């Protein structure tokens, strides 16, 4: 009882503020909380809403950074790449073909060990034009050393942006991180978000210290010389080793996040929904989680024990852990909001990765691939039920096609 009467400690952090904001705005708020130094913008829908919010924060004096409107995505990413090399915390982003226009810069950023944090407002690639979500933009960099994470709500967007800085700027990693937010469904949808206090963020996120890699007259190094066959492989191996260390650093960051902010995401790499007693599961990334969860609740009332696994971190890919989890079920259906034309079994990217992850596993249930919701088309509850029916047939031993396109006009 005496403890309750004691005055609160002076250092007690301010309480979280709750705001009704979109996914894009949540990431802009994270930039402010992280005291980002250099931000570059270039317009393309739907990601560019984040830069509109950033511009307002700068104009109102709430965010002190160099805010530069570039003349192309290539320059946008190159500018922050170089800013990061001299020790600035940076933020950038793009969507669809804009992300592809920056591809050269995206290639060298992890190779230079630049801890850039970027937002991808996932959008269908041209042509034909479509503003809606597809995951092919962000997935295009999956081999290059980018850490890739998908979020499905505005709170997770804000939290993950802070976690992304913490992981990317960890000296053991120094690799960029892209946060994927589904175009429209997340970038433009408002939700109540707990905005943490500056004190908590300070406790969670240390200063970016470029260390011995800092480009400065006091540290006159030569960065990225011509290495050729003499040394390229050893340098590449160092980048690969950093990515291999990423999983444990991500785990540490989530544990610290829970300790400081009092919010837990459980397993950082994937979220499991109603999987404890499930016969079959669906697997997917991003905001399709909403219709999938609604459909699962309905199907469970009909007696079907269906679960869902939402993959958050695509790079690094939690292969062993995911394989152990998925091995518990009778069949698995992977929903891709992307395509990978000519891939094994004509599946999407995620299904192909899941199959690769499952191969060494002791238990290997049948894995079906579904391609659904391209170009921003809604993934509907009937779509989810249709996919689940196929997964059940596979679970019963009935041969199913390796890949089905769902919600398609025939």
């Amino acid at each position, binding site marked *: 009882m005496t403890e309750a009467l004691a005055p609160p400690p002076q250092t007690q952090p301010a309480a979280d503020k709750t705001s009704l904001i979109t996914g894009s705005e949540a990431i802009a708020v994270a930039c402010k909380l992280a005291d980002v130094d250099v931000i570059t913008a270039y317009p393309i829908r739907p990601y560019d809403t984040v830069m509109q919010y950033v511009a307002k924060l700068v104009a109102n004096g709430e965010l002190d950074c160099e805010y530069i409107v570039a003349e192309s995505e290539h*320059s946008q990413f190159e*500018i922050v790449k170089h800013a990061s090399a*001299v020790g600035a915390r940076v933020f950038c982003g793009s969507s669809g073909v804009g992300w592809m226009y920056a591809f050269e810069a995206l290639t060298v950023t992890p190779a230079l060990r630049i801890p850039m944090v970027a937002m991808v407002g996932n959008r269908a690639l041209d042509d034909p034009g479509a503003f809606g979500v597809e995951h092919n933009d962000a997935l295009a960099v999956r081999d290059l050393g980018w850490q890739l994470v998908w979020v499905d709500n505005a709170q997770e967007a804000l939290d993950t942006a802070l976690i992304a800085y913490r992981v990317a700027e960890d000296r053991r990693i120094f690799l960029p991180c892209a946060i994927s937010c589904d175009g429209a469904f997340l970038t433009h949808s408002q939700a109540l978000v707990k905005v943490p206090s500056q004190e908590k963020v300070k406790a969670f996120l240390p200063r970016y210290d470029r260390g011995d890699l800092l480009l400065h007259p006091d540290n*006159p190094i030569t960065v990225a010389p011509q290495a050729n066959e003499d040394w390229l492989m050893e340098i590449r191996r160092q980048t690969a080793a950093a990515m291999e260390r990423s999983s444990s650093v991500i785990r540490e960051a989530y544990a610290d996040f829970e300790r400081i902010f009092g919010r837990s995401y459980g397993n950082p790499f994937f979220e499991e929904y109603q999987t404890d007693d499930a016969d079959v599961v669906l697997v997917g990334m991003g905001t399709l989680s909403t219709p999938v969860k609604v459909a699962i609740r309905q199907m469970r009332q009909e007696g079907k024990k269906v679960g869902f696994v939402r993959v958050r971190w695509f790079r690094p890919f939690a292969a062993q852990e995911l394989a152990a989890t998925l091995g518990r079920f009778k069949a698995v259906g992977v929903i891709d909001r992307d395509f990978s034309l000519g891939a094994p079994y004509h599946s999407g990217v995620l299904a192909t990765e899941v199959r690769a992850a499952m191969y060494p596993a002791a238990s290997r249930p049948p894995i079906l691939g579904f391609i659904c919701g391209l170009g921003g088309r809604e993934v509907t509850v009937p779509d989810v039920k249709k996919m689940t029916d196929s997964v059940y047939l596979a679970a019963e031993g009935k041969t199913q096609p390796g890949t089905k396109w769902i919600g398609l006009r025939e």
Partner: protein
Amino acid sequence: MAVSDKDMAELLKLRPTQTLDPFKGVKKLPLEEFFTSGHRTCQGCESALVMKMMVKAAGPRTIVLGSTGCMYVANTTYYSTSWVVPWMHTQLGSSGSAGLGTAAALKVLMRKGKIKEEPINVIAFCGDGGGADMGLSAISATLTHPDYNLLMLMYDNESYANTDIQLSGSTPYGAHTTFSPPGKVKRIMHHRWKKNLAGMLAAGHPTCRYIATVDMSYPVYSMNAVRKALSIGGPTFIHSMDPCPKGWDYDPIQSHELGELVVTTGIWPLYEVEDGVLKLVGKTRDIADGRLKRLPVRDYLLRQGRFAHFTEDDIAYFQSKVDESWERWLIPGVIPFKKQLEEDRPPA
């Protein structure tokens, strides 16, 4: 109320630059080198000389960003860098963005007290492929940012010389490159006239405070151009004309002489545009003022294997285009609008 220059500087939070006074002559140059041994450029490479003089002019508190090209590949072999100052590679089309990002970061980190406050020079260089072709958009954009101090320098050896001598937007008319070889049916494969890059950038970026053309056959002027570009504040641009023994096909001993001839034939005018005021320099000024007669372009062209296939007609055409730039351009050698404009609308 009008915004004064001082108000604007306050608005832009422009940081002070280093004060780099002009060198008073070649014997007064500092001996200290910041671009030293360890490179493997060709014998007679003028661009390597540009690098050496550029950074000698800038001094030790300088960050250099180099886009892909000869001065990347030949100068920074892993484990044998020739750069004493900090140096970082940037992509072929990124010199403008590299300079901008570096300058922006220094500015904000000093403002926030995250690094020590001091003026640090930022120089981003590119070749003509990286500047006149691929990187033009980023260079142009950077020149519109009055709030960052940096110099972009283009070393122009008139081809993609690192990748095997392919033509660029800066290759002169008719030159033999591996992408424009003279053949049995077509003698001239390259019909495009060289871009007037410095003039284009000066005309198109009215808030840019300093743009110059240089040539390391005139080293004191060229180094002082670098010093002025770094001192004046805001983004600046220098276009350097660099004879290239490999790409132009001549004996390396002639680099310096060709660097003079390109000026004295009137092909390469030397000038500075400072705060919108054009100043012709050196031999170019002598030509403009009538103290020096332009030498025929033949004297320059026929010294180089890349023009060995030229006929008399080709030389005459080349001469006529150079003559036109001196006799009919609104500002000789700089702005390619014809004097017709004046004739149509005579001054009142």
